């Protein structure tokens, strides 16, 4: 088959398009930074997860160590069951504390892991026992108002 300049242009067009896709995937998307291959799953029960969503990040000392994979309501105990998948590279002690935190005042919610002092590590599929619920702004305001009302009036 004869080669023409037309083929060259079409080839450049296709290569350019694929290069743009790869650039989008690597530089713009998270394919370059987030490694899905090696991970293990643990779960925890939370009294209230607030605005936590699947795919929310899990951080320890501010470093991204995993993602929330699944959120469901356990009807045996009426608590939220959150399945987290953590990077294999990071092992955490058995008495690790999981908090639902908020980045910034109105930002996204994420799970913060505070490692405990246990010698044993969390195994894949095990439960994080110590958890702390999300801070729900309405509840906090409610508590504050209640405490204010309970206080004896300072003016008298």
């Amino acid at each position, binding site marked *: *088959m004869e080669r023409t300049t*037309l*083929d060259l*242009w*079409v080839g*450049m*067009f*296709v290569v*350019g*398009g*694929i290069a*743009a*896709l790869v*650039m*989008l*995937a690597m*530089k*713009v*998307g*998270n*394919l*370059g*930074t987030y490694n899905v291959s090696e991970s293990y799953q643990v779960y925890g029960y939370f009294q209230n997860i607030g605005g936590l*969503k*699947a*795919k929310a*990040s899990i951080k320890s000392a501010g470093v991204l160590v995993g993602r929330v994979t699944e959120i469901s309501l356990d009807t045996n105990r009426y608590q939220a069951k959150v399945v987290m998948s953590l990077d294999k590279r990071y092992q955490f002690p058995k008495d690790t504390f999981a908090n639902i935190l908020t980045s910034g005042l109105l930002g996204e919610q994420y799970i913060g892991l505070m490692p405990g002092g246990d010698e044993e590590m969390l195994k894949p599929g095990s439960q994080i026992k110590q958890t702390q619920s999300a801070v729900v702004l309405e509840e906090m305001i409610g508590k504050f108002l209640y405490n204010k009302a309970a206080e004896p009036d300072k003016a008298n």
Partner: protein
Amino acid sequence: MAAMKTVRAIGHRVVDAVWRMGSATRFFALVLLYSASSFRRFRLVIKELFSSGVMSLIIILVAGLFVGMVLGLQGYETLKRYGSESALGSLVALSLVRELGPVLAALLFASRAGSAMTAEIGLMKATEQISAMEMMAVNPIARIVAPRFWAGVISMPLLAAMFSAVGVFGGYLVGVVQIGVDEGSFWAQMQAAVDFREDILNGVLKSFVFGTVVTVIALFEGYDAQPTAEGVSGATTRTVVNSSLAILMLDFVLTAIMFRGN
């Protein structure tokens, strides 16, 4: 009696539109049926890839660059009020990858390549080249229409990807180079917000659907055109109008399916 006439006219138009919809679908099925030969003779597709894909490159790249720059500027102005200029990267990238890339590239493609396809096939019909082919026992759908269809379907996602990539670069130029948003947070926030499967692949899927729809409309309008100068010009106009409407309506449907609530 005037009211009667209006009602009749409306009914006539609706029936006509449904009729055309049906023949367009049948035409689409025929194109798919006869497209095996365009893969056996891929040279025909390559030729059409040149005239629809490569020739649309300049308008796509320039438009993408300027859309990205406008996004950078406008996004900065808005985000500044909330003190979150660092989110500029994710704003630019998400709006381009999810919406503006596929939609604007498809609109430009419809007016740049789609109208050319319609005019070309309509003129072929007006000058009786298509009847001549049939006379020579060459199937015009397999020989003329199918290669153009596949060229459109292949080039649309590539064009949309280039549009988005150049747009992100435009946003970077205005946001980071000109205004001075922190470069690290620009890219980091972008990478944190854009998901490969959720955002980028869905965008590619969108542009693939748009490419299919635009080329089918363009080819159908050309193939169905009245074989006169007036008929061809009307068909070209209808291609641009109908495919633009189809892109925007389909975009809503696809967005509702892909990104509902999360």
